[in-house]
């Protein structure tokens, strides 16, 4: 594994290795010195073309805890706002010796383009691209679910039922989650108004429902998604009040979940829209825990991509024949 662009790239073994590594690294947050020397001398560039607080901070904390040199590159106020292309930005970063690029981009497929090109020799980590994927979010969600629903190293999520509710159409979190959760054996149900479901959803490995109430009783984890108004150019539902009534999670609905079930949200939450304050503040809601787990997961990703021998370390003169 050299890049992390899509959750679909992860086999079950890869995913479990990541979760188990994150489980070990999670111990670090309880220590006096929250730092490991593992990535000393490695340079990681956070290339954020889109606003982000949670993901960017989380990556930055993870990089610093592994002693990597961190370079933050925000599109605002950089040469990108002067019209520089992704290719030229990448070539610049390569010239500066970036060992890994953590990229968030508004265009779906930008990280894949970077990973497939030879513009960069370092690893490419997708931190969210358009409405495509957000694999580290899916990993931290799976990590959080495993801790609650099937704790233990080497365990997967076989047979656990996950309900993802809300704006599936614009959600890269939902896409990455359905791919990863399937790999880990969980059953995913999407609940959304028909207008907020993407075309071709019948080919995704999941169930679809338009009725939240009927799915609650058979749910182990319910994930509420934000309605991404910034990506909407049309009216997808009549009023916010109606959306909230039919697809929002309130105290009554939470009470109908099985006792062990957890309520998740990738953030940022809009209280009163998809989730009420009562639910958001309840102990069953894992939003804050998800943020903490995000640091551990991102450390695991960075360690497994950059901690060992990487392409940049290999002398390029050697051909495969001379080794055998």
């Amino acid at each position, binding site marked *: 594994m050299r890049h992390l662009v899509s959750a679909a790239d992860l086999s079950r073994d890869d995913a479990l290795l990541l979760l*188990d590594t994150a489980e070990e690294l999670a111990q670090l947050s309880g220590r006096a010195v929250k730092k*490991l020397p593992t990535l000393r001398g490695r340079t990681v560039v956070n290339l954020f073309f889109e606003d982000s607080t949670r993901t960017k901070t989380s990556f930055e904390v993870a990089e610093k805890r592994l002693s990597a040199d961190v370079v933050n590159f925000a599109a605002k106020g950089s040469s990108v706002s002067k019209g520089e292309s992704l290719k030229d930005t990448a070539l610049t970063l390569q010239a500066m010796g970036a060992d890994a690029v953590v990229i968030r981009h508004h265009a779906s497929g930008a990280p894949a383009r970077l990973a497939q090109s030879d513009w960069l020799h370092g690893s490419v980590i997708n931190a969210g691209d358009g409405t495509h994927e957000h694999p580290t979010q899916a990993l931290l969600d799976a990590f959080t679910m495993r801790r609650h629903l099937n704790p233990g190293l080497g365990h997967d999520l076989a047979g656990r039922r996950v309900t993802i509710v809300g704006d599936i159409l614009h959600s890269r979190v939902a896409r990455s989650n359905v791919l990863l959760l399937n790999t880990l054996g969980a059953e995913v149900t999407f609940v959304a108004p028909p207008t907020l479901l993407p075309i071709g959803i019948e080919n995704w490995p999941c169930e679809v429902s338009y009725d939240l109430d009927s799915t609650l009783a058979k749910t182990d984890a319910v994930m509420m998604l934000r309605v991404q108004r910034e990506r909407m150019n049309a009216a997808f539902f009549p009023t916010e009040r109606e959306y909230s009534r039919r697809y929002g999670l309130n105290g009554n609905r939470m009470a109908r979940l099985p006792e062990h079930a957890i309520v998740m949200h990738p953030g940022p939450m809009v209280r009163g829209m998809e989730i009420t304050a009562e639910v958001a503040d309840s102990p069953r809601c894992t939003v804050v825990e998800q943020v903490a787990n995000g640091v551990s997961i991102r450390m695991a990703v960075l360690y497994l991509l*950059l*901690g060992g021998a990487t392409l940049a370390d*290999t002398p390029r003169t050697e051909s495969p024949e001379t080794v055998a």
Partner: protein
Amino acid sequence: MTASQDSTQPRPPHQVLDGADISRVITRIAHEIVERAKGAEDVVLLGIHTRGVHLSRRLHARLTQITGREIPLGTLDITMYRDDLRLKPARALEHTEIPSGGIDGKLVILVDDVLFSGRTIRAALDALGDIGRPRAVQLAVLVDRGHRELPIRADYVGKNLPTSLREAVQVRLSDSDGHDAVLVGDRDYAARSSQALAADPIPAP
């Protein structure tokens, strides 16, 4: 595996310690610890993965027998502190478990199977530095095979085993290998050690 193509066949390993020897060695080290640490009042045992963990459990059982007290026991994974990380693909982490009492002000005894270059112990000392500040750190090993590459020595040695660099020392313990034994044989260059990798960093396909 292309080992059979070598002109000289590696000679089969011969046994230097058997199960009973290992058991006697552990008993002796336990007594030495109690004697030198004046009753082992503040001792914390930390086993280094993988076989150091098994040895530390046995040493712990013996110490408990001798002193009649429960000695804190933990495990230490030094992967993140290794100096040869960049010579191999990233490896899976093992579990680090520090006893609930912590290690601050304690006498930490690191336990490992073979002391060779000393690089593992260097990494372990770095790891300890991030976890706390022990009163002192000591090292107990089952076999000291020489060839140190760093100024590190063991405080408790099961057996000093003079070896050549062409030889490999194998420690087998019932917990992971089915039986107890220490074997010395010719090094299998297919099972590339960190030293071999440092000389030639391209892993064989």
